[in-house]
């Protein structure tokens, strides 16, 4: 009567200490340039080597420019962080996919894409969106830099075991509703702390019907409701996705792995600490209006009124609306926007670019809207070119940039100016997230496409 999460966690637990902390063995660690340098510094101070370098892979993503990647990085601090990562990987024997090379990409796009992320694994990275990898049926979660150092020195972390939650979504999705809308809807219902302390398994017929890419979008944003991670039991969709990828098991090893992966599911009588069920029929294209991902509405709805907000939360609610320049109770439909950002570990995969391109095909970008279409990885970029997505985008007035985290957190030059509104397919609408005083409206690729074409917030069903 175990949950899938319990099975994987328990199989990787070496010791459970007084107080409940577990020594948890990590199958794979991904590292990037921002959260790893201090961990290597710690390693050096201890005079140690990396314990299992072959289980660690690096891909610079946060700081990298999305234009002219063949040229040196202009920002000296970014350049230093990137070269530090390369030097650390060189010194400690860690495989790195350098900027501009064929496998480089946002860590959470690269891992599944290369076949490194596999069902049943424990996976960590110094990045909260590591939850993405759970879509392939593994236990994957973000950690801090001290914990990155723990994995470098011991291939383990010390973590208390979270509680379990199952979120079921059942039924067929409405037209033009995508998995981003599903997860924004769930977060709007549960709040940004609704999952804190839990590891979530997503289940139900709607989830089962989703492609691998769409599942990754769901698991990616588990952290936005505070959950340690999210996961989906592997099935034929998962196995078909992984088969043949470079680092996936091959031949006999594939057959053996497949046999084990097919057992990875929660028992029929498994009991979760919390279980919640949603109906897909209630979900419409979503958009956020505030400064956390829980502040989302169906695109045709009105913002909540102050009177509907719990009294203790009103000051934070009003602060948020003031920042965004919105009034309580008003509608967002028809409001002018300035920027559109399509990309990130949430919606920077081929399917997202495909959906966006299909929607804008034969139409023209609104004058005055600046749109950044940023593939999640080099392979996504390559595929977008091969499929003709780049041509479609260019014919409609858009430009396909080079891969990276880009305007999701604006560590590179892709910053939204102060006061400007950006419809973004990324994961966070926090104050200043896309640049100081920028205003982010989170949405899926179709809502982004409709806004890019009309220049105003538009229901993708009405175009």
């Amino acid at each position, binding site marked *: 009567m175990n949950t899938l999460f319990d099975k994987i966690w328990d*199989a990787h637990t*070496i010791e459970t*200490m*007084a*107080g*409940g*902390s577990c*020594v948890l*063995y990590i199958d794979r660690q991904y590292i990037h340039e921002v*959260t790893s340098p*201090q961990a290597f510094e*710690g390693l050096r101070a*201890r005079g*140690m080597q990396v*314990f299992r370098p072959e289980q660690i892979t690096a891909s610079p993503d946060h*700081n990298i420019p999305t234009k002219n990647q063949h040229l040196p990085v202009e*920002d000296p*601090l970014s350049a*230093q*962080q990137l070269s530090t990562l390369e030097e650390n990987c060189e010194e400690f024997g860690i495989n790195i996919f350098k900027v501009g090379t064929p496998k480089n990409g946002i860590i959470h796009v690269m891992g599944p894409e290369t076949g490194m992320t596999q069902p049943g694994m424990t996976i960590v990275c*110094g*990045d*909260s969106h590591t939850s993405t990898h759970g879509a392939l049926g593994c236990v994957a979660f*973000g*950690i*801090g*830099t*001290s*914990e990155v*150092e*723990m994995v470098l*020195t*011991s*291939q*383990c972390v*010390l973590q*208390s075991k*979270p509680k379990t939650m199952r979120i079921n979504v059942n039924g067929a999705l409405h037209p033009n509703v995508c998995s981003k809308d599903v997860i924004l809807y769930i977060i709007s219902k549960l709040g*940004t*702390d609704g999952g*804190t*302390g839990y590891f979530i398994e997503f289940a139900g017929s709607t989830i089962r019907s989703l492609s691998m890419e769409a599942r990754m979008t769901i698991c990616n944003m588990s*952290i936005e409701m*505070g959950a*340690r991670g999210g996961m989906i039991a592997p099935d034929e969709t998962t196995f078909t996705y992984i088969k043949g990828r470079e680092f996936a098991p091959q031949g006999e090893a594939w057959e053996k792995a497949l046999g084990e992966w097919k057992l990875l599911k929660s028992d029929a009588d498994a009991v979760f600490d919390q279980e919640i069920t949603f109906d897909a029929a209630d979900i419409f294209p979503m958009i956020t209006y505030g400064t*956390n991902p829980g502040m989302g509405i169906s695109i045709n709805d009105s913002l909540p009124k102050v009177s509907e907000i719990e009294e*203790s*939360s009103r*000051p*934070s609610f009003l*602060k948020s609306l003031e920042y965004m320049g919105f009034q309580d109770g008003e509608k967002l439909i028809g409001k002018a926007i300035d920027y559109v950002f399509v990309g990130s570990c949430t919606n920077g995969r081929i399917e997202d670019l495909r959906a966006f391109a299909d929607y804008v095909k034969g139409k023209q970008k609104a004058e005055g809207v600046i749109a950044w279409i940023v593939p999640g990885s080099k392979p996504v970029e390559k595929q977008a070119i091969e499929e003709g997505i780049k041509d479609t985008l260019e014919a409609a007035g858009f430009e396909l940039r080079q891969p990276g985290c880009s305007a999701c*957190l604006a*560590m590179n030059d892709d910053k939204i100016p*102060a006061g400007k509104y950006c419809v973004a397919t990324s994961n*966070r609408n*926090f*104050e*200043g997230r896309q640049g*100081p*005083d920028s205003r982010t409206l989170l949405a899926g690729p179709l809502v982004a496409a409709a806004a890019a074409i009309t220049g105003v917030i538009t229901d993708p069903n009405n175009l």
Partner: protein
Amino acid sequence: MLDKFINLSSTAIPLPIENIDTDQIIPARYLKATTREGFGKQLFYDWRYDTDGNPKADFALNSPIYAGQILVAGKNFGCGSSREHAAWAIYGAGFKVVVSSFFADIFRNNALNNGLLPVQVSESFLAKLFDAIKQDPKTQIQVNLEKQSIAIVASGETESKSETQSETFEINSYKKECLLKGYDDVDYLISKHPEIEKFEIER
């Protein structure tokens, strides 16, 4: 080695805002350093300074009224990004304790791994704390890790204060030991290498 946590009595700086995310604690553009030091000056940068880099007078950290080693914040503190820079920035700015009615998981771990004590209190106690600090910014807050207790003590400078109010808080017993003795998890895990190697062979 961590700095050992020493019980303290201090005034506190209030931030009665909910869902303070790590992008507010330290904006992403300040994450480009390759060492752990120096993040304190960028703590709450966009709330603390205007676009010209001048301190905003209405922000609590800039106010001459408030000072201390304890930060008191609204619920769901530290949500969002896993950046440990958030804990480094708070600790680097001289705080030893953060009090809230709810902490995000990754932030809590990051704080504990850096000797910064997250004290989770009830909603009602948090309201009392904010109230006491508002009434009298010189209110002393005592934090005792051995006893896992937090207390509001009258400053003695105002007459309106009633008796001391206190509450106990939870903490993982292993992490408590680490904080009190200055142990760190990396040392512990390195000591486990034989067990880890055995696990790798037998799994």
